[in-house]
Each structure stands twice: as C-alpha cells, then as structure tokens.
C-alpha cells in the first residue's frame, strides 16, 4: 500500500514536470507564431484558397436572399461578389454562408467566414469589444416600425401597451429600448431568433408591430400576404450604417476590402459602368488611370491586390449605382429611393477617398 502510494506520488511529480516543461516550450512557440501572425493576412489565405467565404443573409429580399433560380442574390451578395472579383479576379469565386443575426459575429471570430456582408450595423461596441473591423459603409439606413394599416397607429406614442417584435442580437433591439424610454412609452418587446419567425408572428397578429431597418421593412413588406395592408411609420428610430465587417487586427485584409468598396463608389462618380469600362481603359485622365490600374500605376499592388482589381470589380459586378439599381432601384419590387445613399455630389453621403 505504502509502495503504491509513493509510486503514485512520483508519477504525479513526473506529470507536473512534464507539464511545466511543456508550458515553457509552448510559450516560446507562441512568441514565434505571434511574430508571424502579422505576415499571414486573411488576404493571403483567401488568395491561396482561391475562393472567398462570405457570410450573408438568406432571407432578406433585395439584400441577401435565395432567388427563384436558387442562387444567392441581392445588394450585400453583390458587394461580396465585388470583393471576390477584386481579390481573385473572379466574381463567382464566392462561397456563401447564410448566417442568422446571432450567429454572424461568432462566424467572423472563428474565421468561418472571411468577410461578413449581412446588413450589419457598424457600432462602437462591435468595432471594439466584439473584435470586428468595418469597411466603409455600403448602405445608410435607419430603423423603422411596421404596423397594420387598420391599427390606427401613427406615431411612437400610439404604441403604448403594444407588443413589438424584434430580432435578437440586433442593434434594433437596443435602439427600440432606448427610443421608447426617451418617448416614455410602455411596451413589450418580443424577441425572435430569426426574421421569418417575427414575420410569422406579425402576420398572425400575435404581435402588434415589428421593427428592423427601414430597408428591411420595405424588403419584407413585399413578401407579406397583403403588402398593402401594412404601413411603415414615418419615425426613424436610429442611424443604421450597414457595412461589411472583417476580423480585427488584420489591416491588410481590411484595406483590401475597404478599397474595393471605394472603387465601387469612385467608379460611379467617374461614370464608369460595367458596359463602358473598356473604353475608359484608354482614358488620358490620370485619376481614372490610377483607379483602373493602367499605365505605370501600381495602387493595386500596394494593397496586395492585382493592379487591375478595380477594373475587374467594375467589369464583372458593376459600379455602386448599378448594384443599387439592380437590387433595390426603380425596376425592382422595392423601388427604394437613393436618398442618403446617393453620391455626395448628388446630396447623398457616399464619398470615396481619392485613389492616389
């Protein structure tokens, strides 16, 4: 008995020593990999893999949804395709991952997706604590509330005592609480795991109203059984700048994504579209030459992208205006006005940093 005890103690000792040795060893490997982490950017990973993994919505018509051909389609999906065109030269080299509002950040943190283009609002907290980094805003939105037309609800005050559906894990959930408190309105918030569940509850009358970004309301209104029977209140509850997001601490990758978004905006400013981009290749304008990577300019190379990345983006996906019109513009069911999403020179907020 005594013998086995001493044996056990000695084994324990060996174990402790082994663990201690292991810890000192692995801390040195940690340093090594910490040093190498800056050199291995997501940009390299994506190029080596040859495809881009993009986290998108699959249930928000106009932004991210599965169209009647079974393909991912929408404004956000086109932004993701533009990133693939810019980085890999092929707009179709995208692997789409449908994500719910609650899944999306974990998917970025765990590198399940390279970029998140899923009508995600840029906020301080997400930028800092959640570990994300945001590319330029692709869509300026604001939160609204949808109610049945015959409910007689016109303003926030009329929502006193009502039950309002929200999607969990969204900024709209938080804004609603803030705004209702400011307006002194008592209400019940009913959170749902996904937008489809909110709609199901709203259509059956289980909840009196529901809230999300106004573009989302317009988009989902078109899918209701009787779109005419519902109205979106005039009140705008918040600023919702929607932007593509990548993992924090990877400047190279963030720069690449950012400048692809800027290229979309800059192209519209110059009037370069997917149809006429080839004509612009011979342009004398040095600004256009720098954007398209012709002549002896190497802005693309500086970003770690192909020199003609902007050309590929515009040629394969189109400029910002084309993407907007294709998915949300006057020819679609949504007929969303450009509003804040017009170029700065047309009174909107879109402004590209100069390509120089």
């Amino acid at each position, binding site marked *: 008995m005594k013998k086995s005890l001493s044996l*056990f103690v000695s084994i324990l000792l060996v174990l402790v020593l082994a663990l201690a040795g292991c810890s000192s060893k692995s801390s040195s490997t*940690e340093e090594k990999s910490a040093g190498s982490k800056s050199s291995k950017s997501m940009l390299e990973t994506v190029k080596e893999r040859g495809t881009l993994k993009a986290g998108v919505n699959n249930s928000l018509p106009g932004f991210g949804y599965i169209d009647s051909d079974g393909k991912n389609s929408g404004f956000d999906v086109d932004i993701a395709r533009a990133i693939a065109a810019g980085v890999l030269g092929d707009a179709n080299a995208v692997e789409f991952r449908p994500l719910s509002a609650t899944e999306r950040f*974990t998917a970025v943190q765990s590198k399940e997706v390279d970029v998140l283009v899923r009508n995600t609002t840029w906020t301080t907290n997400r930028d800092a604590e*959640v570990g994300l980094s945001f590319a330029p805003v692709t869509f300026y939105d604001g939160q609204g509330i949808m109610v049945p037309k015959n409910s007689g609800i016109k303003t926030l005050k009329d929502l006193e005592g009502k039950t309002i559906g929200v999607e969990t894990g969204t900024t709209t959930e938080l804004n609603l*609480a803030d705004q209702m408190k400011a307006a002194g309105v008592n209400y019940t918030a009913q959170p749902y*795991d996904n937008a489809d*569940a909110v709609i199901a*509850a709203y259509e059956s009358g289980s909840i009196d109203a529901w809230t999300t970004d106004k573009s989302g309301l317009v988009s989902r209104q078109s899918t209701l059984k009787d779109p005419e029977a519902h109205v979106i209140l005039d009140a705008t509850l918040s600023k919702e700048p929607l932007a593509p997001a990548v993992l924090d601490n990877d400047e190279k990758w963030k720069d690449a994504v950012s400048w692809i978004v800027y290229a979309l905006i800059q192209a519209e400013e110059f009037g370069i579209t997917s149809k006429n981009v080839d004509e612009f290749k011979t342009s004398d304008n040095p600004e256009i030459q720098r954007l398209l990577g012709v002549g002896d300019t190497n802005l693309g190379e500086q970003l770690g992208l192909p020199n003609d990345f902007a050309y590929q983006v515009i040629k394969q996906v189109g400029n910002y205006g084309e993407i907007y019109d294709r998915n949300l513009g006057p020819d679609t069911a949504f007929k969303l006005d450009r509003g804040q999403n017009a170029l700065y020179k047309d009174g909107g907020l879109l402004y590209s940093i100069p390509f120089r």
Partner: protein
Amino acid sequence: MCFLAGLFFLRRGEEQLDKQTTSTPIWRNKKTVPIILQAAFVIVAGFALYFMITNMLYGLEQIGLTLGLDYLQLKASFPIAESLISYSPEDPYIRALLVGLLNTFKVSFFGIITASILGVIIGISRLSNNWLVNKLAVIYVEVFRNTPLLVQIFIWNFAVFLPMPKIQEALRIGPFYFSNRGTAIPWIQTHSNTGMWVIIIVVLAISAMVLYKLLMKKAIETGKSSYPFAASIASFIAGCVLLFIFTGSGPVHFTAPAVQNGTFVGGATLSIGFLSVLIALSIYTSTYIAEIVRGGIMGVPKGQTEAAKALGFKSSTSLRLIIFPQAVRIIIPPLTSQYLNLIKNSSLAMAVAYQDIVGVGNTVINQTGHTIETIFIMIAVYLFLSLATSLFMNLFNKKFQLVER
C-alpha cells in the same frame, strides 16, 4: 543451435519461477501496470486539455479579445419579454442571465410535474385490460416518442397557438382567455396579510400533526378510535375559518384576467412560446416516463398481485397500496434521467422565442462578444439544475429504498 538457445531460455525461466523472486518486469507486474496505464491516461488527457486551453487563449489573443467576467456588470440594454423577477433594459447582463435561468427553471419545473402526471396515467393505461384505453395509450406513446421534439414544439407554436384568435377577439371559456398573444388564467395575488397567513397556516399545520400523533397514540393505547385524522383536519380548518373571520380576507386574492386595450390585465398570462415548449416537453417526456412506469409495474412479482387479489383487494386499491409502492423503487433511477433530459431539452425553447438561459445567453454573446465566458455560464446553469435535480431524486430514492426490510 536455435533449439539449444530456446532450451536455455526455458531453463532460465524455470529457474526464475523456482526462486519466486520479485523480478517480474515492470510492464507485466499486476500492481504497477494499472498505475502506469492510469498515469499515462492522465498525462495524455492533461496534455490535450492544456493544448486546447492554450490554443483558445492564443486564438483569442490574435483577434484582440480578452477573457473576463467584468462585462456581466455592464448595462444589458435589451428587453426580455417575460420574467419571474423585475427586469428592465437598465439592468446589468448578470440580471438578464438570471432572468434566463429562472425562465429555464420555470419551464423545467412545470414540465417535470405535468410530464410525471401524464406519464403515470399513460403508463398505467398501457397495462389496462380495457382494449380502447390500452390501444390509445400505445398510439400516444408511439406517436410522440418517435417524432423529434423540435418538430413537436414547432407544431404547437405554429399550428396550434399562432392561428388562435387575436387578443382583441380572444376566445373566452369561463375565466380563461385564449389568443395568439398567449393564454390568460386566473392567478393568485399576494397582499399585506399574506405573510401573516403563511406563518399561521404553518403553525396550524404543525399543531394539527401533533394532535394527530397524540390521538393516534391514545387510540393505540386504549384500543378505541377517537378519529385522529378527522379531528386534526377539523382543527386545522376551524383555525383557518377563525382567522378568516378575524382578518376578513383569505391568504391570497384571486384575480381573473381581462382584456384591456389589447393587453391582458390581471391573472397570469402564459406566452405562446412558454406554452408550446411546456406542452411539447411534457408530452414528449411523458412517453418515456410511461414506458418506465409500465416497466416498473411489470417488474413487481406477479405473486404480489395474486396475493392482493386473494385477500380481496379491488384492483385499483391493490395497484395503489401494493404494486405501485414497490414499482416506485424500480422507477425512480431511470425517471431521474428523464427529468435531466427534460431540463436539457428545454434549451430548444429558443426556437419559439421563449427567453430561456440559451436565448438570453445568445443575445448576450451577440451584444458583448464574450462567447466563451457566456457559454460556460450556460453550461454551469444546466449543470447546477441537473445536479440539484439528481440530488433531490437521490434523497427521494433513499427514502423509498429504506422502507424495504
């Protein structure tokens, strides 16, 4: 040559056997081998754990996240639809998680009670000689046991509760209201005298029990019954009536629900998420409990039934007094597993917008980015609820086992 060498070794082996020495090699020693194997296992497991932890910490460091529980004190700022305690978006995350825990507890607690009642009834029905009752119980068990729980929850939510009338046109049956906002039932409401009532009721109950013991003792001594049970109950009721006359109010008020401006006022409102989960969980688990009860009853030797019959017991009385108490001993251990399953299955509540610990936890993760800490909190909650249930059931089990001589 080889043969010779073999012979030589054989000889050596025999010599060693003869000597009965302790020189058995360490890898064949009966004492040391298990210890070495166990130590090896511990070392491998330790390394695996160590690797996983350092890997996690490294990954977190790479994306600039830090572990820590400080975030729990920050303002949650998201609303929760139903809560057992007062909660507003002004409260910290920790309170939001507590609300989630209590919601999980609420649905598990009532789920266990209804599942047990249903399970016992169905289990006994399966043994019934009545053909119809028997077959209905079989169909019930087979249908609900062999379909996924999540699907059942969805059916209750989307096919039963959502199509109910809107709250303005709520269906009224007696004091009950049914609508797709939820079901409202009459409920108790405490008032200023409730605390006093509770204390006095406890005192009355204890004195009634003492009276019962005294009278019973006297009855045994004298051989003449002085109706100990009736007397103690009567004394208890008399005390309550006196108290009612004295204070002019009962221990609690009952409030009936009503619909006002599109919301329920008074009574208690059960949300459709809660009802969907509660009913689905109860029915699903009751099928397993029914089979356990059936097995338990069939596990009691047939002689017991026959003996009871020979003594002239009605079949219901023999089931209640003879068969069931013995079956309980067989039933309790597997029953505990089913209770634990029910608690863990309640995490599916998220699918129908019932804000349990998983629902609230996911929102917290999404707002703060503290995935690992929050997941560990969820694990701790389920571990706590499960271990508490196990402990309680083990005590219960012990009590029943002791009755046996």
